Structures are given as structure tokens and as C-alpha cells.
């Protein structure tokens, strides 16, 4: 698919809309009162599975571990038929080639973090090389991190230019821009960083690396969804959303879907425009699906850990 462009005409990011945190908390609480039952729960759970970027981002990752994960991605729970696969596998650049091979023509994408993930504290050239390396090894998607230090210092142009440069290095790979919202201190800043990333050509904006707490809180995700909505209204360009880190159970994932549905509508309720970055979410969703199917509450012993 085609990817987003870098915008030539950009607004003054200092003037990004303000966000009232208490109001956001109230709105999020409303999403959380939605009661998802029966067939809508089953449908929702399958959507969640299909939106997962199954992730392993550990220093101790090995090609073997990545191969296991890739197998899991294609065989989530074979005792249950009609299960979708996850959307993508998310790994470090060094593991991209291994993942690509293991996934073959399953249709599951390979996403690679880059730009000296998770800190982003590396020279510009290295970040570019890091990205090119991943793309050349077959990454379909690049998950970059922004320079939070520069952002907090108010150097919005630096942040914009860096994202734009990575975007160019991505070629035809889709770019997810990780804001690392846990380090941005306020929802106003989350909104501003979202605007910068979208104008700089992000195909997705993503909350977190998963290495910092808090990560993908619903408040943060909601703020970013609102930014996506405004960007779409202004430019007609769709941007995807990826909450990552901290979404470890089905209920929270379903409430995230509620939030997408009621903020952006059905157009974003698919893995082309919405992803979950998660490592342990899949098994909880599977347990819930089995509970729906069999009527028995499940035990973790029956679901493979990879």
C-alpha cells in the first residue's frame, strides 16, 4: 500500500490544541462503562487478535526465540478453528531477516524498531543506517522513536526533520512513530508530538516503547486518536494508531476498540489503521475466546507461552 507523505506546509506546533486532562479522564471512564457481551465480544476479541503486533524486544532475544514467536503468530491456538492471525511480528533490526524467513508468505508483516530503540540516543547517521538496515532486511514496517530530549527542550523543528528523514529512509515501508508518551509529561505534549509526527509523514503514531511506565494509558491513546481525527479533517490523510505497552488483558483491549469506534468510527477498526503492541495480550484474548466458545473459564496452562 502507499504510505503517507511528508507535509511541506506545517502549522506552528507551539499552537497545537490544548487538552484538558480531567475531561479526557471522564471521557475514558465513559468508554470503560461500555459493556461488551456475547457476539459483539467474540467479534471484538477476534479483531483484537488480528490487530496485535506480537512483540519481542529483549536484549536476550535470539533467532530461535524469534522463530518460535513467528510460529505462534501463525498458530495462535490450533484447537480453535477460524482464528485470525496477528497483524505483525515486532522485533529488533538484527532479527528482521530471521522473522521474514520464518513468516514466509503467511501475510503477517514484519515490523522492526529502529533509530536506536528504545532511547533514540544515537547520532543521526546511525539512526538512518539502523532504519535502512531493517528495510533492506525486509521489514514492512518501521517503529522509530522520537528524540524526547529535543522535544522537551522545545526543538520541534529538529524532531520534525528527524522524523521526515527516517520517513525517507523507510522507502515503501510504513512508518510508526513512537512518542514515548511516558516521558512527555502532559497530554498537551502528547497532542503536540502527535501533530509533529503526522505532519512529518507518520503512517502510524504509537504511544510507547514498552520500556517506560506509564505506557499506553487510555488517556494517552484517546488524546492521540483525537489528534488523528483533527489531522484527517484538515488534510484528508488517514493516520493509524498503535497503543503499545501495558495492554495485557482483553477487557482493556476491547475498551480500546470502543474508543476507536466512538472517536474515529469503523474506518479505523482494522489492522491497517489500528494495532496493539503487546507480548502477553494474545494469550488472554485466546483464553477469553475459549471461554466464549466452551463456557469454561480457562487456565493459562492450556495456552502456549512463546
Amino acid at each position, binding site marked *: 500500500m502507499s504510505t503517507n507523505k511528508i507535509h511541506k506546509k506545517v502549522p506552528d506546533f507551539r499552537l497545537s*490544541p*490544548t*487538552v*484538558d486532562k*480531567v*475531561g*479526557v479522564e*471522564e*471521557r475514558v471512564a465513559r468508554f470503560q*462503562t*461500555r*459493556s*461488551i*457481551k*456475547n*457476539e*459483539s*465480544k467474540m*467479534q*471484538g476479541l477476534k*479483531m483484537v487478535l488480528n490487530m496485535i503486533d506480537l512483540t519481542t524486544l529483549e536484549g536476550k532475544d535470539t533467532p530461535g526465540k524469534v522463530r518460535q514467536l513467528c510460529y505462534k503468530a501463525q498458530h495462535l491456538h490450533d484447537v480453535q478453528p477460524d482464528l485470525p492471525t496477528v497483524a505483525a511480528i515486532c522485533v529488533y533490526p538484527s532479527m528482521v531477516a530471521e522473522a521474514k524467513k520464518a513468516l514466509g508468505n503467511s501475510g503477517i508483516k514484519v515490523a522492526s524498531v529502529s533509530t536506536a530503540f528504545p532511547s533514540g540516543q544515537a547520532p543521526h547517521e546511525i539512526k538512518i543506517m539502523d532504519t535502512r538496515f531493517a528495510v533492506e532486511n525486509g521489514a514492512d514496517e518501521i517503529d522509530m522513536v522520537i528524540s524526547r530530549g529535543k522535544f522537551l527542550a522545545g526543538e520541534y523543528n529538529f524532531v520534525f526533520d528527524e522524523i521526515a528523514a527516517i520517513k525517507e529512509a523507510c522507502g515503501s515501508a510504513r512508518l510508526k512513530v513512537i512518542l514515548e508518551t511516558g516521558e512527555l509529561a502532559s497530554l498537551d505534549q502528547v497532542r503536540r508530538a502527535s501533530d509533529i509526527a503526522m505532519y512529518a509523514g507518520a503512517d502510524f503514531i504509537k504511544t510507547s516503547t514498552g520500556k517506560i511506565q506509564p505506557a499506553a494509558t487510555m488517556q494517552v491513546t484517546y488524546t492521540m486518536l*483525537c489528534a488523528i*481525527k483533527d489531522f*484527517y*479533517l484538515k488534510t484528508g490523510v488517514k493516520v493509524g494508531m498503535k497503543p503499545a505497552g501495558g495492554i495485557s488483558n482483553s477487557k482493556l483491549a476491547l475498551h480500546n*476498540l470502543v474508543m476507536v*469506534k*466512538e472517536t*474515529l*468510527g*469503523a*474506518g479505523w*477498526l482494522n489492522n491497517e489503521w489500528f494495532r496493539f503492541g503487546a507480548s502477553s495480550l494474545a494469550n488472554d484474548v485466546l483464553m477469553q475466546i475459549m471461554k466464549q466458545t466452551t463456557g469454561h473459564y480457562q487456565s493459562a496452562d492450556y495456552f502456549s507461552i512463546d
Partner: protein
Amino acid sequence: MAKNKKSETVDKKTVIEQSNELFDFNGVWDYAPSPEGTSHVKLKERYDLYIDGKFVAPSSGKYFKTVNPATDEELAEVAYGNEQDVDKAVKAARVAYETVWSKLSAKERGKYIFRIARLMQEKARELAVVETLDAGKTIRESRDVDVPLACNHFFYYAGWADKLEYAFPNRKTQALGVAGQIIPWNFPLLMAAWKIAPALAAGNTVVLKPAETTPLTAMLLAEIIHESGLPAGVVNIVTGYGDTGAAIVNHPDVNKVAFTGSTNVGKIIQKAVAGTGKKLTLELGGKSANIIFEDAPIDQAVEGVVNGIFFNQGHVCCAGSRLFVQESVADMVIQKLKDRLDTLYVGNPLDKNTDIGAINSKAQMETILKYIEIGKNEGADIYESKCSIPKKGNFIRPTLFTDVAQSSRIAQEEIFGPVLSVQTFRTIDEVIQKANNTPFGLAAGVWTDKGSRIFNLTTKLRAGVVWANTYNKFDPTSPFGGYKESGFGREGGMHGLGAYLKFER
């Protein structure tokens, strides 16, 4: 020039119309029905009056039916109290005041109120379900707003009972005696709590009349009060219609009248108690302004507007029924509002996912529909949510009118339903003037990121409650009440005690 201008507005409209189709809020994935269980709730077939600690049949022998406005199903029969019954209730309240309640130490008085609060908390879910059945309001609201607030109100005022001397420095306070209280149908249990709790804490005894369309939770409260062991006659509940209320207002042995309801009836009551020496507080209608400036947190403001007008089907005296948007952001705000309207679920009030429940009664439904017709005839642009509504029962789609003139009736009169009128403004002076340009003065909302502007507005808006960057928030500690024709006296907080006390000078 004029021609250019016109084409510009037409262009703006097409942008809005187009973008409305950009977001599909109904397709792909929907929520399955998720109704709150009702099996644990056992309604009686018939509810009698609660007088002098006993449940007694009305002297006329007459009962009236109360129905579920969402289904038109009959829920129960309720006693129709007349003048004679009111007289019995007032006499019981007088005896209880003279012989028991005024003799009790303030501490003990407080402990009874605490006990009522706790019993209500224990039965909270039952109260919420019955409230939803009888009033048509959503279970989400009765469960999360009405019932907890009602419990908390008792809890808050319970603590005041033995601390009254701290509320009014340098004044000795005294209870008034018998308080006659008449409450509306929009927040049946909560209004009962707003009335009974401070009255008891201040040392009065009570005769309360619930609204005729929503008497059930008041009767459950009577059962709770009975269970609490509150001395007989301290609280009496007499159900009935307007004539029952009039009998309370006109009873010569009532020392205090507290009324929440329409401005029209409030005025009748004000006239009726003239010259009687009865202390009076009135909490009446409103046509509150909600004002959005261009620098506001727009998404939260839109949410606040939705909460301001569609909360409780718009059956809220302080509903933010007049929206003023600064012209520079008007298109965006209106569009976001329309999107938000489309995501609202209207339907079965017992469903946990329902955002907007049933209109409380057929009569109110007709009033609202009449105003929608008036709005259309006045030339305002109407937008109704695309949501589906049930075929049976009293339901109205959330509705907004744009291009509304200040002189238009839908911008001036209280509709008491899910209907919002939208006007635009350019300058701060203009909006203050327009917001204050009403006989009412209950509440107002202001949305802006600028602190100094908030305080400019909050001081200049002539309204008893001003919500800045929020709307429709309530708390037992927070005084509530109006300026001008929205009534006088406050309910809630320390100031709410004043309505039930006199000073020994």
C-alpha cells in the same frame, strides 16, 4: 461582496456534510444488548402513604398507576394522597418535632441520618434499577450518578447535625419545625435526598411529596427510613398529584416550603405562601449558557456540551441548553458535536450501554416535540442523531439546532429535553451579554484555556453555578441554586443548611 459571503457559507456547509460521512460510527462492530438484571428487584403491586412511621392507605382509597416510560408497562399502583392525608402527615410531623426530634441530642440525630445513608448504600443497586424503571433514565446514570450522590448527600449532612454552630459564626441557630417538600421527576431519589437530608440535620421534621410519574424510589426510601428506626413521624412521604402538593404548601402548620420544579409552579407557590411567614426556597427552571472560546480544549468542550444537554435526556434544570461558540471554531465544534451525536445510544434505559434513555412521560414528550417543531418553523437548521430509536416507548433522538437567533423561542424557553440550540459569537462582551439575556440564572459553562478569561466570565455570568472547563458536576458539598427566575436558596454544602434554620438574634 454579499454574494461572495453567501457562497462561502454554502461551501462551509458542504465541508461539514461531507465530513459527516467520513466517519462511520455505526458500521462493522456494534454492542450487543447488555441489560442490567432486574430479578433481584421485587416491586410491590401497591404502595401506600408513609405517615407517622406506618404505611397507610390513602383516605380517599384512590390509587394511581406509575408506568415505565420506556415500555409503557405498568409498574405499580401508588396511593393518591389528598388534603386529609397531608393533614395527617403534617400533624404527625408536628408531634414528632415537638415530642421527639427536637428533644433528641444533635449527635443522635446525626447518627440516624448516617444510618439511612448506609442502608441506602447497601441497597444502591436496587434503588438504581427501580429509578431506571420508573423514570426512564439510563442505568449508567442512576447507578453511577443519582444513587451514589443521594447516599453521599445523606452522609454529608449527617455530619452537620451536631456542628451547626460552626456554619453560622456568632449566631445561634434553631430548626424551623415542619418542612413541606415537593420534588420533581427528573432526579427522583436524588432530589428526595437533597430535601430530606439537610432538613433532618438541621432538626426539622418532613412531609415530602414525590412527583406523580416517579414515586417509587421515594417509597423505597420510606422503607429504608422505616428500617433505620427513625422515630415515627420525622419523615412522612405522601404521594399524589399537584393538588397533594398544594395541600402541603397551603397547610397552616407547615413552617417551611421547599420546592424544586418549574418556574411557573414556583411562582404559584411563592404567591401562595405570601404573608404566611413560611420560609421558602425555590429551585426552578433554567436556560443555561455553555460558552466555547477558540482556545478551549475543543474535544473536551464538545464532550462537556454533550454531557451538558443530553445528560438525563436533557431533563435537567441546569442543562446547558444554549451553546455559544466563538465563530472561528464554530464549524469544527458543530461538526464534532454532530459526530458525537451519532455515537450516542438511545434506547432501553436498563441497557448498560445506553447513553440516552426514555423521555419521562408522554406529556413531556409532546412538549419537546412541540419545541422541535417551533425550532424548525423559526427557520433554524436542525440536526438529529443518526442513531436508531426503539419503536415503542417515549424516545427522542438527540437534536441540535444551528443558526438560532437569540430571539427564537428555542433559545429562550426551557425545553427540558435533548434539544440544544447553537449560536455563535465574536467577542467576549457580546457573549456575556447574550448569556445573561434571559430571565433565568441557574448555571453556565465556560470553556477556555485562559485562566484570567475564566474568572472574567465566572464573575460576570449571572448564574448560581458556573462550570469552567467542565459541566453538570454535582456534589453534596457544593451549593447549588439559582439567580433571578431560577429560584432562591441553595441546596448542598454549608450554605444549604441555611434553608432549614432560623437564627435567634
